[in-house]
């Protein structure tokens, strides 16, 4: 999965916003570090999540993510800094 190409990214702490997306092959960037982040990704067919603002992945989150073959990344940068770097690197916005 580390070799996967990702085309789109969406940054949000509001899972309801994530649940409105129809896009496939996207990276979720979020500062919401709890089990519902993983559940939301599961329902939305998202398998890559980048946690910003030093949010830590708990064991419970890790287990559920493993069940769903997800890639989780922890990042110490702010949301703004993170998405700036990703945008510059060529990741596309969904809208």
């Amino acid at each position, binding site marked *: 999965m580390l070799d996967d190409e990702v085309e789109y990214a969406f940054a949000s702490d*509001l899972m*309801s916003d994530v649940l409105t997306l129809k896009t496939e092959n996207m990276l979720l960037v979020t500062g919401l570090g709890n089990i*519902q*982040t993983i*559940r*939301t990704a*599961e*329902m939305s*067919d998202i398998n890559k999540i980048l946690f910003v603002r030093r949010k830590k992945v708990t064991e419970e989150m890790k287990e559920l993510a493993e069940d769903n073959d997800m890639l989780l990344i922890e990042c110490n940068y702010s949301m703004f800094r993170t998405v700036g770097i990703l945008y510059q690197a060529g990741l596309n916005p969904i809208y």
Partner: protein
Amino acid sequence: MHFEYTVQAGDFSNAGFASSQIKKVLKQLNVDTSVIKRVVVALYEAEVNIVAHAYEGIIYADIDDQKIVTRLIDKGPGIPDINQAMQEGFSTASPQVREMGFGAGMGLPNIKKNADNLQVTSKVGVGTEVKITVFFAA
């Protein structure tokens, strides 16, 4: 096929369990992935609503070769004004619900967008029933 799941209020750890189980069943049945997504997104929002607002609830799912019908029946405070609850942005969610990434008044409108048919009935002080139907064929 018939499935039943119980949902406890405030149990955010398990919110989404029923939706997850249904997703697995629909995958096994080779239902189109975009249809599965509509089903589980609607069901998950409705499941979170029970955890967030009710005292307890039961989810019934009935699947045949053409459609899935889910009924979410809860015991809870009920919805005094369903039209108001259907409006995007209207929410009575607690700070705890917002911390979980919900409670922005998007749940019911998003359920409606994903469902082929949505029926919400509610009695104040008794509870709410949400019936979501999604057809498998486009």
